[in-house]
């Protein structure tokens, strides 16, 4: 080994359990956040296809506001800004992990709204006419005819959003969430093994995102979307 350039991979043995703890939180925040993000995004996306002006307006403001600001600003705004307000008024604050989940939900919701809107609007209007001409209500036509077809088209972009949101959780290191990046930084501050630990952190993120894209490719093949 080159002298003066000492890599200590033994540190990995020490760091791994801590990093795996971080991974657990990363996954929990991602999945919980995306679950609520999907509900929010589906509602906002459908509102964006609606002829109801106020509904359309609210959803549009939401989507534009979130897509137009960095997620780090959103997370800081929620955890420090909104929390300050909450502390002053009701003496209660959102803890860091729920704040992370809320931030992912609100952020991904705006992008998912556009995914949902695009997919729903891409379904041929002849499908709706066929459903309505059979006497199905507009809700039943949507539920049985439009949504299943639209949902299939949402799968690839939703998978993409899954990967983006997972990586976005690393920003919650800034709001004291003990997710993967934060755990890595804690280990580094104790060991000064920045290269080794950041390498491990990067590889672990990569392992997660590659797993998602592999599963996704399998699902897309099975459902024959595209």
């Amino acid at each position, binding site marked *: 080994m080159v002298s003066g350039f000492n890599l200590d991979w033994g540190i990995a043995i020490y760091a791994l359990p801590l990093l795996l703890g971080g991974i657990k939180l990363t996954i929990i925040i991602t999945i919980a956040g995306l679950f609520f993000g999907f509900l929010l995004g589906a509602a906002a996306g459908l509102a964006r296809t609606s002829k109801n002006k106020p509904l359309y307006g609210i959803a549009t403001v939401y989507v534009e506001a979130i897509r137009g600001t960095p997620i780090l600003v959103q997370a800081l705004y929620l955890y420090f800004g909104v929390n300050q307000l909450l502390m002053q008024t009701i003496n209660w604050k959102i803890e860091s992990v729920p704040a992370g989940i809320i931030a992912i939900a609100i952020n991904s919701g705006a992008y998912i709204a556009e995914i949902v809107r695009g997919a729903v609007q891409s379904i*041929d209007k*002849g*499908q709706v*006419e*066929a*459903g*309505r*001409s*059979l*006497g*199905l*209500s507009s809700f*039943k036509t949507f539920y*049985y*005819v439009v949504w*299943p*077809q639209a949902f*299939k088209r949402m799968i690839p972009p939703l998978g993409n959003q899954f990967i983006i949101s997972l990586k976005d959780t690393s920003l919650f290191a800034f709001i004291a969430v003990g997710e993967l990046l934060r755990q890595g930084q804690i280990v580094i501050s104790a060991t000064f093994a920045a290269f080794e630990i950041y390498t491990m952190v990067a590889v672990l993120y990569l392992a997660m995102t590659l797993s998602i894209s592999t599963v996704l490719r399998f699902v897309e093949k099975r459902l024959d979307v595209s």
Partner: protein
Amino acid sequence: MIIKVENLHKSFGELEVLKGIDCEIAEREVVCVIGPSGSGKSTFLRCLNLLEGITSGKVIVNGHDLTDPKTDINKVRTEVGMVFQQFNLFPHMTALQNVTLAPVKGLGLPRDQVNQTALKLLEKVGLSDKAHVYPQNLSGGQMQRVAIARALAMNPRIMLFDEPTSALDPELVGEVLTVMKELAREGMTMVVVTHEMGFAREVADRVIFMDHGVIVEENTPQEIFTNPQNERTRAFLNMIL
């Protein structure tokens, strides 16, 4: 009269597409609507099940006043089947599921009973072996026959056809027309927008010629095709025959 249309006007914004249509259609009657592209044939047909809103005039279908806001339009539509040029089958459902969806989810009929009726209807249109096939694996002619079975599954009193064979390869037109002829023979009330003059001649009780949003001439197929009264009718028939 199972269909009564009085002074029907329909505009899309500034564009007036139907300029006062009067028309009565009796039960068991087969009426073919012909005319140049853009003359308002589809719009007229779509006003009969309110796929297009009515701008003014009166339309009574199977006893329901379509311009009365209290009319339950979903109920009316269960009594009026429609077949589209582009088939509009549901691509995520098999042929059988296409046929059973509305009776089960719309009318709330028991699935077993509906399945049996649906299989009989698929047999009637010559597709009993395709019940579990998805539309993407059917030919155009087969898709249109499934679409007809799907409409019939609601047990409608009236069937509307909007150029049902126009999107088909020529060799597939016959199989769809055969099904429609059978339906006419059984006494279904049918309004058919079509360019198939052979079908109109053979099956129609009456042919309506539309141009520029009005009914220019209507008569028996015999009269319309051999002895058209109006200059525009003559010009149109000369062009296509």
